């Protein structure tokens, strides 16, 4: 058996001056910072997330489920004297049971944002991996994997959710899993399509000829190149997921009363539109502002992250 010849590789000559390399992320961050709209959106989202998650712990904010039926339907910036005793200040008015709208919006925001981000990351993880693998491996594996997606597409979403909730009981984590498990299908298709066109390109051939393993090719080369599309689709998924949550809550499968989410608050408000418009206006403003900034940020991120747009 021939022994492996030991080859001593000569050390590379030390360069005089190393140009400091920049990473993909750093480049992207530089480009993103130039986009004012995207940066505003980013700060707004951060502020929103921090407010929703931290403020409810502060004593300034009222208990969102505390009812004062005799103080119902008050306007913004009013103080009501309840027969139950305390006088209550409502910064955004009170709802049909005298609960603080502002506090309910913040608490609802926690649910909506959590569902939005968690379910989206579930769908993102599954969808991107599944699509990239199917597209890269190709052939029969691809065909089989995509038929599975087709089959799952054909299953009625609501019925699956109902079956899962009857089996596992009505729990919030189930909501994340259910929504995530359904939303990944389109993501998988999109990523697969991208990968199919990318894998015939020269840089992949180069990577293969350099002896990179499949996993390395998928994670180092293919997925970063689909990032633009993924981000655009993700920013579309977050609102879709929040909307799904609202639908499920309405059917009694999601957030249970008296707890609220933005979806359920908007629904309650829409019902009482003629008698009590502020119940609709305030939650909708919060919801719309969040969705807008998600879209702007997504737009900015796509421009910033897509390696093909990096000219500098």
């Amino acid at each position, binding site marked *: 058996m021939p022994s492996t010849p030991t080859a001593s590789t000569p050390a590379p000559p030390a360069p005089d001056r190393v140009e400091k390399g920049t990473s993909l992320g750093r480049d992207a961050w530089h480009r993103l910072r130039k986009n004012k709209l995207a940066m505003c959106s980013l700060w707004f989202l951060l502020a929103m997330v921090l407010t929703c998650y931290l403020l409810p712990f502060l004593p300034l904010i009222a208990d969102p489920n505390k009812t004062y039926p005799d103080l119902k339907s008050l306007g913004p910036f009013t103080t009501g004297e309840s027969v139950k005793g305390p006088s209550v200040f409502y910064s955004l008015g009170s709802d049909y*049971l005298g609960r603080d709208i502002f506090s309910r919006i913040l608490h609802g925001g926690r649910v909506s944002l959590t569902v939005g981000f968690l379910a989206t990351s579930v769908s993102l993880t599954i969808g991107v991996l599944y699509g990239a693998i199917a597209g890269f491996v190709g052939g029969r594996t691809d065909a089989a994997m995509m038929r599975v997606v087709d089959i799952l597409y054909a299953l009625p979403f609501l019925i699956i959710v109902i079956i899962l909730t009857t089996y596992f009981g*009505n729990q919030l984590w189930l909501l994340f899993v259910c929504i995530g498990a359904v939303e990944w299908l389109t993501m998988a298709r999109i990523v697969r399509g991208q990968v199919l066109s990318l894998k015939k390109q020269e840089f992949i051939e180069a990577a293969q000829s350099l002896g990179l393993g499949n996993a390395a090719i998928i994670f180092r080369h293919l997925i970063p190149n689909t990032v633009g599309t993924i981000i655009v689709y993700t920013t579309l998924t977050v609102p879709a997921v929040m909307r799904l949550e609202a639908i499920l809550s309405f059917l009694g499968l999601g957030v249970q*009363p008296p707890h609220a989410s933005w979806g359920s608050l908007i629904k309650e408000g829409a019902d009482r539109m003629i*008698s*009590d418009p502020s119940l609709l206006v305030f939650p909708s403003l919060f919801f719309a502002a969040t969705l807008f900034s998600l879209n702007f940020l997504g737009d900015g991120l796509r421009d910033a992250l897509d390696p093909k747009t990096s000219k500098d």
Partner: protein
Amino acid sequence: MVPHRLLALTISALAVFSTACERTDRATRAARDKILLLGNGAEPKALDPHIVSSVGDANILRALFEGLVTYHPSDDSAHEPGVAKRWEANDNFTEWTFFLRDDARWSNGDSVTAHDFVYAYSRILHPEMGSPYASMLYFLKNGEAYSTGAVTDFSQVGVKAPDDHTLVCTLEDPSPYFPDVVKHTTWYPVHQATIEKFGSMTDQFTLWQRPGNHVGNGAFRLVDWRINTFVKVERNPHYWDAANVKPNGIVFFPIENNFTEERAFRGGLIHYTYVLAPSLIDWYRENRTEVLRSETYAGSYFFRCNVTREPMNNLFFRKALAAAIDRETIVRYVTMGGQQPAHGFTPPSDAGYQPPDVIRFDPAKARQYLAQAGYADGSDVPAFDLIVNTSEQHKAIAEAVQDMWKTHLGITRVSISNQEWKVFQQTILDLNYEVARAGWIGDYVDPTTFLHMWRTGDTNNQTGWSSPDYDRLLKKAAQLSDTQARYAMLYQAESILLEELPVIPLYWYTRVYAISPHIVNWNPLLLDNHPYKHIDIRLPGDNPDRPPYN
């Protein structure tokens, strides 16, 4: 000047267009055709009088069937002849003879005979039928015994048809108000040949209820039934009094969401809302007072407690829950329709019965009960569900009550879950709940319609509660012919009910709804059972003396 003229032209065109639109909205077009468009709550469970038990379902059946005696358009205690043209009782009101009219017809043209009634009663009482409302027929001698299987021979049940047009009902106890009782849906006849064409007698959901197959004997017949969309009926040409039936047809819309229903009403899609959401009542009072109606309604809103389950099997715990509900606040600020906070179960009625005055809001007492129940404070109470059927109003009430229990008792682990109406009914029937919202509307004008249902084994009990003393008192009351003595006995029975609290009363209903001003003869009724044949629709400009249809 040209632009101005153009502007004026556009505006007048728009004005004409918009008035044209207003005139031809669906409600107006239907009114012109004398079709009633009625909101009717939830999707009907069935169109079979032996299966249904809810008010909305009964509303549809009242159009499709007719009992021996029927409802008067403006007086709950008046008796209008239905299939029976006259009736008489023996001296102590235990045997009633109904003389049926010769010209009563099924919607397929067959004659309605006394045998159809006997068949119907043998069907609803049949143990295999499992009818949720069979207990209404326990008035009949041996009715309960047959229904529970103690008697297997139907000929021993107190209903006989000596000939085609005579029906004799022998009752368990004297019941002077029996003609009121037989107006109810459960006493309607059914068409034997049709039922048995699509399955055996005791099959519950067969195709006989579908449009095209359905046969009834009411003023209307079934044209179409689309799930979650509508139930459409038209005048029945074979009906004996067809010449005096005012509407040409009725469409019932199952709109579960109160707000959607109200928008449909405001948008001219329906003539009548089944309910009106509390938060809209004030708006209607200010802006559309001519369509708003608020009437006394013999009904009780309460929570059922499943006494077979933790923690509801604990009497003191139920008492604590009942005492911690501030009913005054609920009726004033949550339901807002002028409802009365309930201090007993049976609504006080003009007939003279006053329920015991024992249910009170008393937070201190409630905490004391909680301690007696063995809970130091509310946080050690096991988690339980409060289930409601899908409706914003029930949800709002549940949320308010949940917060009251939290404030006054410290109970934190109550979750509210809502269920669609059909699922909800089944859940209650299966005793698969801890606390459930419920409402009971009187079936006839007598307190027994609110008290009979809590007897042991009554099909509408659905709480698992049973009390031999209660049963005995009701039985004794039934044998008394003196009204005052009977009421006193019923009062004692109700006191037991309110002492043991398998149900937690909240308030006594008022009927609050919106109705198009074009609907004529829709009068306030305590039981809200409107006989549709008397309801007329008149648009402004219509000649009221116009001869009736056909």
